[in-house]
């Protein structure tokens, strides 16, 4: 399913941060979101995930399709890795959490309480949640924070596998993940996506 964003304007705390944003995210594609701090990348992801209303513009194809990962992973420190992951699997109606444990090398940690994990291990568990949602569009906000080199590779592999299965991803990150994705550079009050100018043209 293609996510289409047309002439989107968003605000944080009542102050407009981005406007005139248009892009399309097609199945099998990744879009890397770049821009300086405070430019509204998180607000954009929250808006697309349905947590916030846009000021103006249209978002199509997002309904019940988006798996969102924010800065915090929603982990419960007194539950084990398996219990944390199984909870989200049940919420999203998924039976099998083994592929998610495998993809982020969490098998050895499966009986540990999430409160005893290191920051990087917690992040891996948070990202494994994306796999159990089984939703086609991933929205990731700075997913590689506190991940080591190996874990970043694990994450990039997981995203690549997800894209290979026809999923898509919108990732706000400042590091190079080696993904075959387009880059959406957002600037103050104006977003100019380079590779899809023609697409914008169709709308304008």
């Amino acid at each position: 399913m293609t996510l289409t964003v047309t002439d989107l304007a968003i605000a944080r705390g009542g102050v407009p941060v981005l406007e005139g944003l248009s892009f399309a995210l097609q199945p099998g594609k990744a879009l890397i979101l770049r821009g300086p701090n405070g430019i509204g990348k998180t607000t954009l992801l929250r808006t697309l995930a349905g947590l916030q209303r846009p000021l103006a513009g249209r978002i199509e194809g997002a309904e019940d399709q988006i798996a969102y990962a924010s800065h915090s992973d929603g982990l419960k420190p007194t539950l084990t890795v398996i219990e944390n992951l199984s909870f989200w699997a049940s919420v999203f109606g998924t039976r099998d959490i083994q592929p998610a444990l495998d993809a982020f090398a969490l098998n050895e940690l499966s009986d540990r309480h999430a409160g005893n994990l290191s920051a990087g291990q917690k992040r891996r568990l948070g990202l494994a949640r994306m796999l159990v949602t089984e939703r086609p569009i991933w929205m990731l906000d700075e997913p590689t924070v506190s991940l080591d080199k190996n874990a970043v590779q694990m994450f990039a592999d997981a995203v690549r596998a997800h894209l290979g299965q026809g999923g898509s991803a919108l990732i706000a990150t400042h590091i190079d993940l080696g993904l075959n994705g387009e880059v959406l550079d957002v600037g103050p009050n104006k977003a100019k996506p380079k590779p899809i100018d023609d697409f914008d043209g169709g709308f304008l």
Partner: protein
Amino acid sequence: MIALLLRDLKLALRAGGGFGLGLAFFLIVTVLVPFSVGPQSSLLSTIAPGVLWLGALLACLLSLDRLLALDWEDGSLDLLATAPLPLETVVTVKALAHWLTTGLPLVLAAPFLGVLLNLPVPGFLWLVVSLLLGTPAMSVIGTFGAALTVGLKRGGLLLSLLVLPLYVPTLIFGAEVARRGATGMETQTPLLMLAGITAATVALLPFASAAVLRINLR
């Protein structure tokens, strides 16, 4: 839905989950009352229904600020809002989990604490019945208050101030059922009022809670 309920019950029962906090408070209040008002058994039996109801209400209030705040702080409320569960279901399940971990233990403990306050024998049944009917309303109203104040730093005080007036009708009719029951009077009118309040809050407030939660998450 069941997964959320089971997770919340598990979290409450594990270390630091806060299960038993309300119960301990209830126990402390009722144990201390005879020391503060004096040991005259006639006086104690007169005030017992009211004290027990007030103790249960305050014990309920004590655990409300953690109801949604923990999920807000660790980000799981945001993630639940993007999950296939409607927020109305989320808040209803949260209220149910709160009742099972706070309200129900209070109902079960109340008869034993009634003995400490020399509650007249006919009053025990009515005390349990009135608490059983009234505590679900307290959990649902409390969830509404928690949804209103979620995300506020030190929202606990504001939450108590918001919720307290909403608890008053339940307290009036609940304590009245227990008082009338203890003195052998007719209990039907306050009992129906109490049941009506609970039915109305359980039916309507989850929608209001979900609506304010949506606004607060923005």
